[in-house]
């Protein structure tokens, strides 16, 4: 008999306890975002940015790519397709860019002028394409990726993002760190209606034409 009433009591009691919890929750503000409509959440308190180093879409800075094919080798799903043509022996296209990683996780792409070795308590001048010469205190520099001479023409550098499994192994083996995963919104929102447009072609053959033109121009000037 007592068990019978205890049953009723615990039934009613636990229901009320649960309802109290859900009611308390109802008065609290919600935690969700209205994603496609507000992806910059600055107005709201529960802002979240895409963290640095997020593994988004793959992108290759083709100017710095040396065509070593390490990424193609490591890729578990073979989504990277590279064709290269080797230059005649001893020649090189250009020195690749240095990538200077700062301690606050920012990075500067450019050429370090003069000595590659960074001594402490100095400022390092980095010649960038966009911003001209940038001077950075050597304390801020976390590491510098070494320059490598480019000895390959890249005829083809295709990445099929519909195959990619976002493991990030290719970006880790890249010696010049020119293959990166975009950690901004651009690297996430790239869906299309056509599967073939997910094959990203990074090779720019016209780049070499321009370069050859420049070379002939300078020869003419000489």
């Amino acid at each position, binding site marked *: 008999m007592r068990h019978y009433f205890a049953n009723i009591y615990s039934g009613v009691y636990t229901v009320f306890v*649960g309802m109290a*919890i859900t009611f308390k929750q109802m008065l609290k503000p919600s935690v969700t975002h209205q994603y496609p409509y507000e992806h910059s959440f600055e107005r709201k308190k529960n802002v979240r940015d895409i*963290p640095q180093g997020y593994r988004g879409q793959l992108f290759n800075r083709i100017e710095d790519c040396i065509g070593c094919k390490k990424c193609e080798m*490591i890729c578990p799903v073979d989504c990277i397709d590279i064709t290269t043509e080797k230059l005649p022996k001893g020649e090189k296209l250009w020195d690749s860019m240095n990538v200077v990683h700062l301690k606050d996780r920012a990075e500067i792409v450019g050429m370090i002028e003069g000595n590659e070795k960074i001594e402490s308590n100095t400022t390092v001048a980095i010649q960038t394409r966009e911003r001209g010469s940038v001077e950075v205190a050597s304390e801020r520099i976390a590491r510098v990726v070494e320059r490598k001479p480019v000895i390959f023409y890249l005829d083809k550098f295709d990445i099929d993002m519909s195959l990619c499994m976002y493991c990030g192994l290719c970006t880790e083996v890249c010696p010049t760190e020119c293959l990166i995963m975009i950690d901004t919104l651009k690297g996430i929102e790239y869906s299309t209606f056509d599967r073939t447009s997910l094959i990203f072609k990074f090779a720019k053959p016209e780049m070499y034409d321009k370069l050859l033109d420049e070379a002939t121009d300078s020869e003419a000037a000489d």
Partner: protein
Amino acid sequence: MAAPKPESKFIELKPFSDEMVVNMGPQHPSTHGVLRLELKLDGEVVREAIPHIGYLHRCFEKHSENLSYPQIIPFTDRMDYIAAMNQNWGFCLAVEKLMAADEKKGFEVPERAEYLRVLICELNRIGSHLLSFGTYGMDIGAFTPFLYAFRDREKILLLFEKICGARLTYNYVRIGGVSRDMPPKFLDEVKEFIDYFEPKIDDYNALLTDNKIFIERTTGIAVMDREMAINYGVTGPNLRGAGLQWDLRKDEPYSIYDRFDFDVAYGKEIPEIGAVLGDCWNRYKVRMDEMKQSIQIIRQILEGSIPDGPIMAELKAVRPPKGEIFFRSEAPRGELGFYIVSDGTPKPVRVKAKSPCFTALSALQELSKGLMIADIIAIIGSIDIVMGEVDR
């Protein structure tokens, strides 16, 4: 209980007028993925429930034979996608042990990496159990705990996103260490999360665990006692729910688990609410308790100091010596074993994953006899299977 009788491979359809054969799944809201159950019903009562698997088979083991060791790790992510960190770690531990067999190739995993691994994997264990709790609530019919669980799991995923750049398929634990060091202020965020989350567990217990209807639905249902669990090779929370204190982290400590002090959660008989050892409620409860236990471990990591140093051992190439290894680790769903045969080349000859979900699922047929349809749902939820790991 005796070992299960060998079942006939072929489906025998006896056209009884009062027996109804119902296909539950592969598309069904609560079969946790693509499990198909062939139910033979007598009204609401299930005479037999035969699980059919293989709908999510992706040839993990065959793939592995054609990939080098580091390349296999992202594939382990896809096995138990709820607890991918633990899967990564399980594989890496096996390969590391295999490499340690050769003195020249053996190496020490740096201290910092070990701490990071424990921290991350315990966080992932919380995330996995949260999801299990949420979906179990939804199976039983309460929708709200599901969203609460996802809300809190989201916070864990944000932490993972910061440390490894991905939300679900982490590929974080590597052979010889971890892939990235933690970002600045990461530990503060972990602490913030733990402080936020610990009281929430009591909320969940009040909302679902102690709810009279929930107790009625789960206590005394589908009792998998100790003997049966051992016979079937069931491990993890399902085994501990049967009252056996068997936790690899405690009993065969790998990595640095022997440095932490934590209690193993196990099932208890509570006559007041009708809970029996090894019933659905106890299996579920072990998971709720394990979340607290993981918090205990994480707190110890946060209170002590994580040593500075490298996060990756210096090894040139992953090329284990000739030989074979079986290594098991405690994943959230049970003992995850990897059997690897190496012939000294960069690619393994054979990789076999011993999946805890598969063994748990094999007990379903015996557990579900004579119960009701609603109980089948309760059992599937309580043994907490992930079809990605069952089928691999």
